[in-house]
């Protein structure tokens, strides 16, 4: 970067940091020094990790890695003390190679924070409503009338649309989704593909808030960059949540839950998603018929495996294109 450009950046009111592909800072403007209380003179050559604290540090490093790897801008959010920032990390390309990344941070206005708070407040009642509807829907067939079943189905679909709208609103404001703080700025067509790692993080975050989780944390083991699945991400997300709900019943022994995803070849390319319940001593309960129907509708296969004392795993095999 030439000196004149740096001079222009120094007049910007928004904090700017420029890094190299190795994760070292090359430049930070005075606005960054002011907001983040770092001595700009000591920035060049310092690891980017040293310029940020806690969760902000991880969010920045993730964004830099993804921006450099994929050559696309990455939006994310971070907090520094009492200040909230929406940020974008954009790769700098020269002669076909990624030679650095520029991070622009924009202080969030109060209104955005308020809408985000509203979104958080909406999530719990939506989850509760979804669970109630699901329980009603799963009542034995002879105890409900066809009309009631139809109404419940309509209500579930309406709730699905509401949740989708709320999630899109959240994503528009933050460029992020739930536990996955990074959203890539891609074309509109990318909305109908499912990125496995982000999907599992969303499912884990939602499931941890349910009563059945009983305070247990859910780990996710999925490499970034797994092949994406075609189709509506909400559909698979809903299926995995129902599978978790069917498994997450309070038990005497505290269990550790791990969600895994990986791709395999086999007769056809497939994505394997497993719900692993470590230490579970019994075989998995039979899956409700509606769950099996949903799995079949996705063209997927479900397999439960158990082995004491390891635990049990419920594996979902989904066909990948190609």
């Amino acid at each position: 970067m030439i000196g004149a450009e740096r001079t222009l950046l120094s007049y910007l009111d928004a904090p700017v940091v420029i890094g190299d592909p190795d994760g070292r800072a090359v430049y930070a403007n005075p606005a960054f020094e002011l907001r983040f209380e770092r001595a700009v003179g000591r920035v060049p050559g310092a690891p980017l990790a040293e310029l940020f604290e806690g969760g902000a540090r991880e969010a920045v490093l993730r964004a830099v890695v993804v921006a450099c790897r994929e050559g696309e801008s990455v939006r994310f959010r971070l907090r520094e003390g009492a200040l909230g920032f929406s940020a974008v990390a954009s790769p700098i390309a020269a002669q076909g190679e990624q030679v650095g990344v520029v991070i622009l941070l924009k202080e969030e206005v109060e209104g955005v924070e308020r809408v985000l708070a509203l979104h958080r407040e909406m999530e719990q009642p939506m989850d509760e409503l979804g669970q109630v509807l699901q329980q009603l829907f799963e009542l034995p067939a002879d105890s409900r009338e066809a009309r009631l079943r139809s109404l419940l189905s309509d209500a579930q679909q309406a709730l699905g649309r509401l949740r989708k709208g709320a999630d899109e609103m959240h994503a528009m404001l933050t460029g992020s989704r739930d536990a996955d703080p990074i959203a890539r700025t891609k074309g509109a067509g990318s909305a109908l593909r499912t990125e496995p790692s982000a999907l599992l993080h969303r499912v884990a975050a939602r499931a941890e808030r349910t009563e059945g989780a009983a305070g247990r944390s859910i780990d996710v083991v999925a490499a970034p960059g797994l092949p994406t699945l075609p189709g509506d991400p909400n559909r698979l997300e809903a299926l995995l949540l129902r599978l978790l709900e069917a498994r997450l019943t309070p038990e005497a022994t505290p269990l550790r839950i791990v969600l895994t995803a990986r791709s395999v070849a086999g007769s056809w390319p497939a994505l394997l998603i497993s719900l692993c319940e470590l230490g579970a001593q019994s075989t998995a309960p039979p899956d409700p018929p509606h769950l099996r129907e949903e799995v079949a509708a996705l063209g997927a296969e479900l397999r439960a495996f158990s082995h004491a004392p390891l635990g049990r795993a419920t594996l979902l095999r989904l066909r990948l294109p190609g």
Partner: protein
Amino acid sequence: MAAESPAGRVARLLAEGLELFGEGRVDQAVARWRVVLELDPAQQDALDYLESAGVPADAGDDGRARVREALAAADAGEAEQALALLSAATAQAPDDLDAQASFDLLRAQLYARYRARMGDGNARPRLSVEPDQLMRFDLPPEAGFLLSLLDGRTRVAELVTVSGLDPFAVLQLLARLEQDGIVELAA
């Protein structure tokens, strides 16, 4: 083990197998020799030992048997060995969903164990040998890449993010590097 050379691993597995065989723990001995054959299908010592144990050298036609062996190894506390066997079984029969599910279950078990050992991802790994001594360890490329990211301040959870690698692979590598005395984990 990933932090040792393939030849070193073969030698270690052969020796461990003989020791286990001598102790009457035939299943575990056979499991080790089978892993050797995964690394080098023509390894004569492993073929001879299996023949001596009265076990077919090629269990490839019977993936189920290999899964059973792996689970027996896991039950005996040999989780890493079991994972290697299941990895081989699933590579050979990728459509065997029971094998795939057991592989995922064991991986999840090991992941939780590694993570607990690393302070739930909060430990800060750092080199415990001088950088110029690393050459003598004959490390695989991914281990070298991971070591290049260590600065003593970055937490394990952040390394997983920054590396872009499979989270399980990162934790497994770090655990092995620590076991080999190449890396130490600070709180």
